[in-house]
């Protein structure tokens, strides 16, 4: 087992652990922390694959900004322990098996048919950030600009929704 594989398994294990913890933790703040664990592990995996910029963004934007926002809201709303109600019969009895089945189907489909793909970072090179930015500002400039409006929408939304009644 090569070192890369070992690192992969460790990180993958952490990610899955985080995900499972997210599910099992009953306090939202713990779930949020579990999710941060998943994100950090994924950032590691991105690095492992050589996607350094994505890894950085993952940590800065996702792990940093977004998750901080989550934690902030949890604190703001003073969310306590999760109330484990079971009003939904369907979700109670069929939810877990079906969700697992779905994940299984996807995993199985991938496992059976993506064998021909070359391993990532087979060329050993990191993705140059310059390449990335070139794409972003030339080929994908239109969605990029659209994203600005998207963020504007989000700002308006936050204002509109969180505004107190006057």
């Amino acid at each position: 087992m090569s070192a890369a594989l070992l690192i992969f398994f460790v990180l993958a294990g952490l990610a899955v652990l985080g995900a499972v913890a997210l599910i099992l933790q009953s306090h939202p703040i713990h779930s949020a922390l579990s999710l941060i664990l998943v994100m950090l592990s994924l950032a590691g995996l991105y690095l492992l694959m050589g996607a350094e910029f994505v890894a950085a963004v993952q940590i800065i934007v996702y792990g940093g900004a977004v998750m901080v926002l989550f934690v902030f809201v949890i604190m703001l709303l003073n969310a306590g322990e999760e109330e484990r109600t079971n009003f939904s019969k369907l979700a109670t009895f069929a939810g877990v098996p079906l969700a697992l089945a779905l994940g299984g189907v996807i995993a199985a489909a991938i496992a059976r048919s993506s064998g021909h793909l070359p391993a990532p970072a087979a060329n050993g090179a990191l993705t140059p950030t310059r390449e990335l930015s070139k794409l972003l500002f030339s080929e994908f400039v239109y969605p990029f600009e659209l994203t600005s409006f998207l963020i504007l929408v989000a700002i308006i939304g936050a204002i509109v929704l969180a505004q107190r009644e006057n």
Partner: protein
Amino acid sequence: MLPLQIPHTSDLVRVLPEIIWCSFGVFLMLLQPFLKNHRQILTLFGMIGAALGTLGTFFGQMGAGFSGLIQFDMLSLFFHWLLGLVTFLVILASDSYLERENLDASEFYALILFATAGMGVLASAQELLTAFIGLEMSSISSYILAGYRRDAVKSSESAVKYFLLGSFATAFFLYGIALVYGVTGSTNLAKITSADPSSNLLRMGLGMILVGLGFKVALAPFQIWTPDVYEGAPTPVTALFAAGPKAATFALLLRIFTTIHAATGFWFWAFWILAVATMFVGNLGAVVQTNVKRMLAYSSIAHAGYTLVAFAAVTFLKTDPEIGPWPAYAAVLFYLLGYALVNVGAFTIVSEIGGKGESRLTLDDFAGLGTRQPFAAAAMSLLLLSLLGMPITAGFFGKFYVFKAAINSKLIWLAVLMAVNTIIGAYYYLRVLVVMYMRDHEGEVPADAARSLSPTAAMVVMVACLATLYLGLFPNHILGLVLSQDLILSAR
């Protein structure tokens, strides 16, 4: 230095509608501090924005833009018109609603315009990334709009449900894109076209895309969110939901599932089954509703089902070299246009009848409308008959073309099941008519319920009715436009 490419002017002209819509959105936000109490002016600007954006389509050249990220063809043109018209009408219809509910106008209109821009992007997207951004633009705006009546419990519930489930579906959509990307190495539809149809991963990816988009257009069983969200959202917003995103998403579905060869042949079974399920769920669900707004929500599910019948025909006809899929495309487009206009009109009436706080939405509140508000009742009848598919209305030709597409593709049983559904539909549409004309209002009619439609709403309803009749009498004018092999450029 990075070799930054300034986009070519022609590319910008191709997205002129989106630019105008977005600019007006920003413009309206900027006006907000100055015109806070001048709702009518804001409405006017919103309408101008919607109209100008629609006019913006006339300058673009047919063809792909932004290095193939978007495709400016007849399909996108058609949907831009549809969206512009719908937005125009929805903004007009919102005027009295915002006044009644005492809501801020500028953000509302800005969000509508942003949403429209997002739908426009969706309609012309040739690249799944663009589509994703467009989808998110329209979706995020929609989430906010759904919860726009902040103090109303139902509105916020509608928003939270829409948001959670919408994001859930988006995740599926994205995962689908990822898989498609993995198999084909691209997210550009033009490049995916020739992908190996036997790849299971591609199949899985397209399936997940179908799940994600099917959620947006409310196909059973992904329709499950629709009644709740439609009921809870402010009624003009519901009108927009039922007309805009649905149409735009169908445009994208058309583009994807006509472009990609891998999604033909056996795929029609997926559409077949989804169509049947959707029609039955929508119609049977509507039969038992007593809330008109919710009933219309169910009916919109049913209509998605009817549209999907034509879809089944598309995927099937693609393999028929003699006829080609164009009649089915035309059917989808015509159906969506007629349906969108009718729905905007119908929801506008419901919004007006609903009164302050949307408190009068049940069938009982519609009782005796025929005498109380003859115009509203007559218009509602016409629109409902169009939804039912009576002749000389848009709905009739819509259904007719769908039937025809289905029969062209020898999907006789699908056509028969659709006929059965039409009969079920007749039952509940007719019930509203019956209540309006044949039953008297029980108890005293509240003072404000007797008030006739506001002028703006009346205009919207008028336009919807006239459009319905126009499409019902001269369907050819529109059909001639969309019956072209250039409809979807990448699908030639």
